[in-house]
């Protein structure tokens, strides 16, 4: 599979996944110091999904994310420094400190926001997909949501609407096993979330979410179909998140699976093994990315900590365009 991607694409994929991992591991560490306010939900372990889907997207395309949104933001090209500053509540943040971790957005990058409401995104991307269709841009729209979000009426309504309107939309169910602490094997009535696709008149695909190449290929087919007017697709990623539902979650509801996933299934480890084995990238190529990403994240944290807080007057701005 690796040989269908160019060297640049492979490097981009690895850089995206490594950036997400470093970002999340670092936020995890910094959160423990007490310096990061509020609620933070980390994406580590799920990197192949965001990276594999978004490598198929371009500037015409829009994504909507979830409360676990850092990975989607990074994969869609949102500035990492701005993201980190946002998480620290600084005025230099992506949203000037008014959004925080759960609301990082950059519409200029086609990133319609992380979203604090489970199931908030799917209706919105029906709209961006409709706009792309009516304007003839060729753009596609992707809603990422979790196994929890897969049970929201908004998600189910949106899949139906996307088929009824034949929208260039893709629904990516990231089934990491738990909605907060409740197992998806309990909360999802079907064996697979993807099994629901038929009920909405679209193809459903199940993908090993730890396998970048499998994700990329499933998304490539879905994106091509959407761009050609073939309508929506539901893709289910199956994997595990490495951290708790939120930072501070003691995770008493699960035992050994994270250690097993990190050791045996990890998307970065598998990607690295595959591309070095088939010779498409060298260990030195990957090490160079690792080094650059480490510097990027260090810089993002240092700058975020040093950045100014919003001014008191900012409380009242940007409620409306004009009022």
């Amino acid at each position: 599979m690796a040989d269908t991607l160019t060297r640049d694409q492979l490097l981009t994929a690895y850089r995206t996944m490594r950036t997400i991992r470093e970002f999340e591991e670092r936020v995890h560490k910094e959160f423990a110091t007490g310096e990061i306010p509020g609620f933070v939900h980390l994406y580590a372990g799920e990197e192949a999904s965001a990276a594999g889907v978004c490598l198929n997207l371009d500037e015409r395309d829009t994504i909507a994310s979830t409360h676990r949104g850092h990975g989607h933001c990074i994969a869609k090209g949102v500035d990492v420094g701005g993201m980190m500053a946002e998480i620290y509540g600084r005025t230099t943040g992506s949203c000037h400190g008014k959004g925080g971790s759960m609301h990082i957005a950059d519409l200029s990058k086609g990133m319609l926001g992380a979203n604090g409401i489970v199931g908030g995104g799917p209706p919105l991307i029906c709209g961006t997909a409709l706009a792309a269709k009516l304007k003839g841009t060729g753009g596609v729209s992707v809603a990422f949501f979790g196994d929890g979000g897969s049970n929201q009426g908004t998600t189910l309504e949106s899949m139906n609407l996307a088929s009824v309107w034949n929208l260039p939309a893709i629904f990516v169910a990231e089934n990491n096993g738990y909605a907060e602490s409740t197992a998806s094997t309990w909360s999802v009535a079907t064996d697979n979330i993807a099994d629901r696709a038929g009920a909405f008149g679209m193809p459903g695909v199940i993908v090993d979410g730890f396998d970048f190449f499998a994700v990329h290929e499933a998304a490539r087919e879905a994106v091509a179909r959407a761009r050609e007017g073939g309508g929506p697709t539901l893709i289910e990623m199956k994997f595990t998140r490495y951290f708790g539902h939120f930072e501070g979650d003691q995770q008493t509801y699960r035992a050994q699976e994270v250690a097993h996933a990190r050791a045996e299934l990890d998307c970065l480890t598998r990607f690295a093994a595959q591309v070095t084995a088939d010779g498409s990238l060298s260990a030195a190529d990957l090490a160079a990315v690792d080094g650059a990403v480490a510097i990027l994240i260090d810089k993002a944290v240092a700058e975020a900590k040093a950045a100014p807080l919003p001014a008191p007057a900012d409380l009242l701005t940007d409620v409306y365009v004009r009022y």
Partner: protein
Amino acid sequence: MPRNLTYREALNEALAQEMERDPSVIVMGEDNAGGEGAPGEDDAWGGVLGVTKGLYHKFPGRVLDTPISESAFIGAAIGAATAGLRPVAELMFVDFMGVCFDQIFNQAAKFRYMFGGKAVTPVVIRTMYGAGLRAAAQHSQALYPVFTHIPGLKVVVPATPYDAKGLLIAAIRDNDPVIFFEHKALYDLTGPVPEESYTLPFGEANVVREGSDVTIVTLGRMVHTSLAAADELAASGVSCEVVDLRTTSPLDEDTILESVENTGRLVVVDEATPRCSIATDISALAASRAFGALRAPIGMVTAPHTPVPFSAALEDQYIPDAQRIVNAVKPVAEWRR
């Protein structure tokens, strides 16, 4: 050149003129095309309200029927607004906000602030409100206070065909999310409406009747009821100034306060239920900002704190009528310290 149009026709003309002027304006909602895809049925309805009738053939591809999935299509309208369209979505009855409210108040209303001023969401949600058609508890509410409460939304409540057209065009051109309340008992009301396109500004109340003894602040259908009451009060020597708010967010505080400064007496007339309502909001405004001018306790005429009943015998009692307004204004006018 003004002709007489119904409130419904005025809204339809506003939509047609804006769709003609701006190709990014689209319309969507249940039955808005009137059965798209069913041969012979196209455009049969033009929405259950008949407001979008005739638009489907005039603007191919820009009038969309939707499944009965308010969360999905109201959310889609909001998403499309962030992507360069100016959607006008029809939420058939405002009572149905219960099934799509998240998209309105957690998504559309908050994008601009939450995203640091980087989002523009020019969506209009047209919706029908109000009692009087024996439609009972789930199809009759006046829920504009709920939306007025939420920062990020603008709320428009037109009372006449003229206002309906001018305010809807303004809503479509506005760059913030607008909730546009149409009273179901007003659709057949006729009044003069200019043929040409025009806008009415948000946040500018309309003094629909000048008077010197008591200020009546009201909105929507209650403007007409209040005017009828004012006529009756005039016959008994009480001169009422009637202020039509037109929009509750933004709210024209200046016109309200100026009128109260002049009359020293205030009665608020609101079809909504009384708690945390426009009536209490206006009363609090006057009490806190025009206390020195007030020469009598503020009167409030509202629906009772109950769901809207079905039986005519009860619904007629639920809706404020001219007699109740007269009865509320008289003691305020006569109050002496």
